[in-house]
């Protein structure tokens, strides 16, 4: 059996460094389970959104989703996020090849793409609020829209902070059995964010545009 300091060494990494230790395997499994829970979380939000998407009641400003949404921006955002999913796949590819430098580069690109996505989302919200008076409190539709999309945005933001922290913390010491699971799990999280976005652009924007 290895002594515990071994996990900090970058030598002799196995093929799947993220699952080589018991801790790593636990993290890996635990995180997948967490994602199972997140599925229900987002389902509840989607359900709420779908139930309220045409609900304005006696609200003052009632721009329906058809008029509200602009597809160009959403398309760009989608491309950014989809691409960031691929770049994080690249990062994991290099992790499995024990190429720490390349992994960091691809993670960096992932972060940049994610940040761009987030920036556009903030711009989008700003636009809705200022041009359509479509706010969080203006109607049930508004509340549901910002909550669903905002929850996703918050996930993106958290993911960015997480990956950045990991990158900074480990910049100097390279890949090892202790941090490999952390990187791997963060990338799983990132993919999951993308999964959710696929449904958001489909259900909220595209279907909302149709009516």
């Amino acid at each position: 059996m290895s002594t515990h300091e071994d996990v900090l060494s970058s030598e002799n990494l196995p093929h799947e460094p993220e699952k080589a230790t018991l801790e790593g395997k636990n993290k890996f499994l635990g995180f997948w389970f967490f994602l199972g829970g997140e599925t229900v979380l987002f389902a509840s939000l989607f359900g709420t959104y779908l139930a309220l998407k045409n609900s304005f009641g006696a609200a003052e400003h009632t721009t329906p989703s058809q008029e509200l949404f602009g597809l160009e921006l959403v398309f760009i955002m989608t491309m950014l996020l989809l691409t960031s999913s691929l770049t994080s796949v690249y990062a994991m590819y290099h992790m499995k090849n024990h190429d720490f430098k390349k992994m960091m580069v691809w993670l960096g690109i992932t972060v940049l793409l994610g940040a761009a996505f987030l920036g556009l989302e903030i711009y989008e919200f700003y636009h809705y609020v200022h041009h359509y008076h479509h706010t969080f409190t203006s109607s049930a539709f508004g509340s549901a829209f910002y909550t669903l999309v905002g929850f996703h945005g918050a996930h993106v933001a958290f993911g960015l902070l997480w990956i950045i922290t990991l990158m900074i913390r480990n910049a100097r010491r390279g890949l090892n059995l202790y941090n490999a699971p952390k990187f791997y799990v963060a990338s799983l999280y990132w993919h999951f964010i993308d999964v959710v976005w696929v449904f958001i652009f489909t259900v909220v924007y595209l279907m909302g545009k149709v009516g």
Partner: protein
Amino acid sequence: MSTATVGKRSFGAVVWDYLTTVDHKKIAILYLVAGGFFFLLGGLEAMLIRLQLMAPDSELIGAQFYNELFTMHGTTMIFLAAMPLLFALMNAIMPLQIGARDVAFPFINALGFWLFLFGGLLLNCSWFLGGAPDAGWTAYAPLSVISPGHGVDFYALGLQISGFGTLMGGINFIVTIITMRAPGMTYMRMPLFTWSTFVASILILFAFPALTVGLFLLTFDRLFGANFFVPDMGGNEIIWEHLFWIFGHPEVYILILPAFGVFSEVFSTFSKKRLFGYSSMVFATVLIAFLGFMVWAHHMFTVGMGPIANSIFAIATMAIAVPTGIKIFNWLLTMWGGSIRMTTAMLYAVSFIPTFTLGGITGVMLASAAADYQYHDSYFVVAHFHYVIVGGVVFGILGGLTYWWPLMFGKMLNEKLGKWTFWLFFTGFHLTFFIQHFLGLMGMPRRYWKFLEGQGLETGNLISTVGAFLMAIATFILLYNVIITTVKGKKSPADPWDGRTLEWSLPNPTPFYNFKQLPLVRGLDPLWVEKTQGNGKMIPAEPLDDIHMPNNSFLPFTISLGLFIAAFGFMYRVDAGFPAYVAIGVGLAITLGSMLIRSVKDDLGYHIHKEDLEKEGAGE
């Protein structure tokens, strides 16, 4: 690091040890103490409810206070008493039953506890800060949205925080069971308590997110002007009901399944027989969980979902009776032909059968949608769920605690006092709740601050109150029993009940690393296998070697504390202005800062060296 610390330590050191512990056995004790405290609190609230309802048209307690009482009674009992007490048992026993040295995420495990505790404390702070939540434990909108004051904010934020804790605890249990089983401990050799922990944890994983979302929406409506449940602005109050019950129904199985697990162990041990129909018991457990997800709308039959939805949910609900029945009969057959010892723990298990069956069959009556139009929101429902909850969950907890007490504390509870507790509690319980079935059918709705004179409800309510007092006396005897045995009790033998499962193979007291050498499991009821086919001792599955242990940490405490502080800020944002924003800032800074420290600081744990272990072995 190991034996040297055993000597007398200062009080401060002990407290610090508990504040920072990541040892599942100590976390179990924390859960037990906190959950026990909340149980007394919830019980006290129940007693006040019963006092108010002792006589018709009673003015003992004001309407508002009464509403706060039953809201807090329900919330406290379910979230802060029953679940944590079950978590106490799971933490204390499950890792030992599967032959693990630890849980998968010791840090997360501790974090789960502190989040629960701070959430619970936050909820109860409401009593001193202008009034507790008053919209029922189900907090139906729009009543919960328009409820004045901050009561419901405490509800939403308190449950949110403690809910995160529960979710983490659940994930920890699942992974522990998957990855940390001792060699030979296959899934189909796991004791049923472990199985039910596993399944209940999966239910937690999928049920709690719905509550999380529901609570977020409620918080947004109340504190940030959202319109989810405001009909005038297009909101729809029924969404809350769905989200709450999508969580709420699985929740009741989260409560009962572990209790089922406890009983399976107790029946088997005290009948000296292996569990009858083990595999169908496992199958039934999984089936109950699965079906449990498809029946939530049986709480909403009168909402107006229409006959099609009502019929579907009615039939789905009834279906749950089948796997539950399988369990009941398997337990009966476990005892059949056995050699039954009526210890206190066994008394709880034995009395559970008729009690729970009664509660279950009234459940099936409720499931009959058309008939539920009469039962719903009447005392018939109150009777139903106390029969299953008290007769199932509380009996399970009490029985389980009595059974595993020697393992957790190294001493036996006094059997004689235990039997007094049991008989008083049992009698009081039936006195309190049996009559409530009839009160309900005679037209008494639940959540009634007072019932009026001349409707024929007087006698029933009086009887019910008297019964509640018997339960209170029983609880006092239990407390006395705990105190007296802790102070004066003798050390118990390592395996006082002639146990069958792995946890009883451990010495008393259980070392903090649990198993010096991981045991080799050779069948169902591994210790029994060794007792009948071996020398009564577990065969080690590995040579003696260094043991890896996690480090203690104070961060779970601070992460939770930060959220606690921030929650106050969010609540008082509008009335308090600047100081509230400070609280939000400071609170979140503490939480996020602690999380940052956690991720930046390597936490590799430490090793207990082989040599130390050998030395310890010599002293045994």
